[in-house]
């Protein structure tokens, strides 16, 4: 077991996969010098310039070249530095990459990974660098979506994404990059589409992803002091979605709270809530609650950002209201 930060885990997963498969190549802005978040440190030195390519600031060219190279049999991993920048290459990401296998009747496959920093996490990155945008991708059939919550997940999910024959976007959380954890030494892969119950509990199910996993675990600790045992599910991937894990948990707890960092307007939590409404209706003893980021662009001043970001107190208050301990709901 080695102790790795989340950012080191990403570099380690890239190294593991590049060593294993010479078709894996990297491209992105500043990746040859280790990347602005230091997630590709040492890879250019170890694997050479044919495997690690610096690009201009040209997201359309980055995503498009990844696609073409994947069509030609490579397994590119493209860094989109901040996930807000997907908007600048949305044609490639939404119209080209996820469609080409299907619209060619299966003639082409798209074994590529797009990865980069996502989310707010209270770091003051604001409206154009601090968004959580998994749900942008989630409304496009044909893209898989992974959002690791821990260093070990960052390692294992990225490795699985690289081995997958379909396009995967890995949303790394920029507020987790310096988090440290023991990671397995031997080959480490976490299959896409398998959620984890990261804390068992009988009173309610908290469904979380990426940064909200830690928020829900902290909230569950606090809820325990109020006599509420919350079960926390880390979804790990949104597509494929481990709906069975959510439904099984709701069958045990009878209450569902979905906690997402992005604005609630059409957030991924809406899909979870809808699945529960249709498939777990008779298991539920209370309405499904969603706790999400505010439906506003992300402000920078700390006092404003804290007001709209998901937080432990908001989750605690939401769950206590759901269980009748508090009167008003903060959902």
């Amino acid at each position, binding site marked *: 077991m080695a102790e790795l930060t989340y950012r080191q885990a990403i570099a380690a997963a890239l190294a593991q996969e590049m060593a294993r498969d010479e078709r894996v190549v990297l491209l992105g802005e500043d990746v040859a010098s280790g990347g602005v978040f230091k997630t590709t440190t040492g890879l250019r030195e170890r694997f050479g310039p044919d495997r690690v390519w610096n690009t201009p600031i040209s997201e359309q060219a980055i995503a498009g070249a990844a696609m073409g190279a994947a069509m030609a049999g490579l397994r590119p991993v493209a860094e989109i530095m901040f996930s807000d920048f997907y908007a600048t290459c949305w044609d490639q990401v939404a119209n080209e990459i996820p469609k080409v296998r299907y619209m060619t009747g299966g003639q082409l496959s798209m074994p590529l990974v797009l990865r980069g920093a996502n989310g707010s996490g209270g770091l003051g990155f604001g409206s154009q660098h601090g968004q959580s945008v998994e749900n942008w991708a989630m409304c496009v059939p044909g893209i898989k979506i992974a959002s690791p919550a821990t260093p070990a997940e960052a390692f294992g999910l990225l490795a699985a994404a690289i081995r997958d024959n379909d396009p995967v976007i890995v949303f790394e959380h920029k507020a987790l990059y310096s988090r440290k954890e023991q990671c397995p030494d031997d080959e480490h892969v976490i299959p896409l589409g398998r959620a984890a119950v990261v804390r068992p509990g009988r009173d309610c199910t908290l469904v979380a992803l990426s940064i909200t996993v830690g928020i829900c675990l902290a909230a569950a600790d606090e809820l325990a002091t109020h006599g509420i045992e919350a079960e926390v599910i880390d979804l790990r991937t949104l597509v494929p979605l481990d709906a069975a894990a959510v439904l099984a948990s709701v069958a045990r707890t009878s209450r569902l709270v979905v906690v997402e960092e992005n604005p609630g307007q059409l957030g991924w939590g809406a899909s979870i809530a809808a699945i529960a409404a249709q498939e777990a209706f008779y298991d539920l003893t209370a309405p499904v609650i969603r706790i999400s980021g505010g439906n506003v662009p992300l*402000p920078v*001043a700390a006092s404003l*950002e804290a007001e709209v970001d998901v937080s432990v107190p908001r989750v605690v208050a939401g769950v206590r209201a759901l269980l009748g301990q508090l009167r008003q709901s903060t959902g």
Partner: protein
Amino acid sequence: MSHEAASASDGAGPPGVPSDPDVPSDPDVPSDPDVPDLYARMSYLRAFEERADSLYRQGMIHGPVHLGLGHEAIAIGAASVLRHDDYSIGTYRGHAHALARGAPPEAVLAELLGRAGGICAGKGGSMHITSTEHGYYGSYAIVGAHLPIACGLAWAARIRHTSQVTACFFGDGATNIGAFHEAVNLAAVWRLPVVFVCENNWYMEYTPIADVIPVALPAADRAAAYGLDRIIVDGNDVQAVRRVVGSAVAAARGGQGPSLIEAHTYRLKGHSAADGGAYRPADEVARWRERDPLLRTRKGLLQAGLPAAALDEIDRQARDDLIAMTERVLAQPAPDPATAWTDVWDDGGWQWRN
């Protein structure tokens, strides 16, 4: 994949900054009677950015900060030839461009420090400083995004026959994004009154621009593709910037369409205040430090007979002013959290459903 191809595209060699491209450099001795005033304005920007840098390093600024240290002559020189109702627009490295147009420094500092008096109400922060009242239509943090927007500002002026000009500032790295090419082409085809000013500081974050362009100069060597003149200016010479941007602005105002100017400059610090800039060779940094726009203007003014004490006094006043201002701003409260929910819509609110 050939090794040669890899090297050509992202050259593993030392970062290439042409030693002295064909920059028509003015003698630094001022011929322009406004130079003492321009010096004072640049000195104020310098003091502001140094203050911001130090506040950032003390952990007092939430979120990233990109300083215009070293770029002062471009902001001040260009602003000095704009009419009060002209538009300008820039990037996340935008404090200087807002201040140069007359945005109140105290409100800009309050925005950086997350205080209630912030010029964007605390919602934009350092990367989105805006002062429409002073013609500065904003700082945008998605590289390239604001070049098409500049076209729109200029287009509106054309449609309304207001003779307003738009000045658009961006970096060398921005010339590689599609939006740059679409915007410059549109401006040329529609003969829009816009002056594109590329602040070539030779780096896009950590990567030397030479590694990611196939020509020597990112903007100037692309101008011909849009039927525009190849215009290069020493961006560390405030008089030269003033003259070159001045004639482009006059041309735009006179209905002769857009210009693309490449101004050569250098960051005195890293890409953002969090970056030490260690990837830049020491001799390169030293060479550019000699070309510091403030030092050069100062030298010229001394040669023209201004007493050093007068210039020192200008610098001292700027620093003192900012120290006192910092105290006042820090005494302000944080923005009321309730204001996080205002100004999504024109009705002042944020609701998307009843």
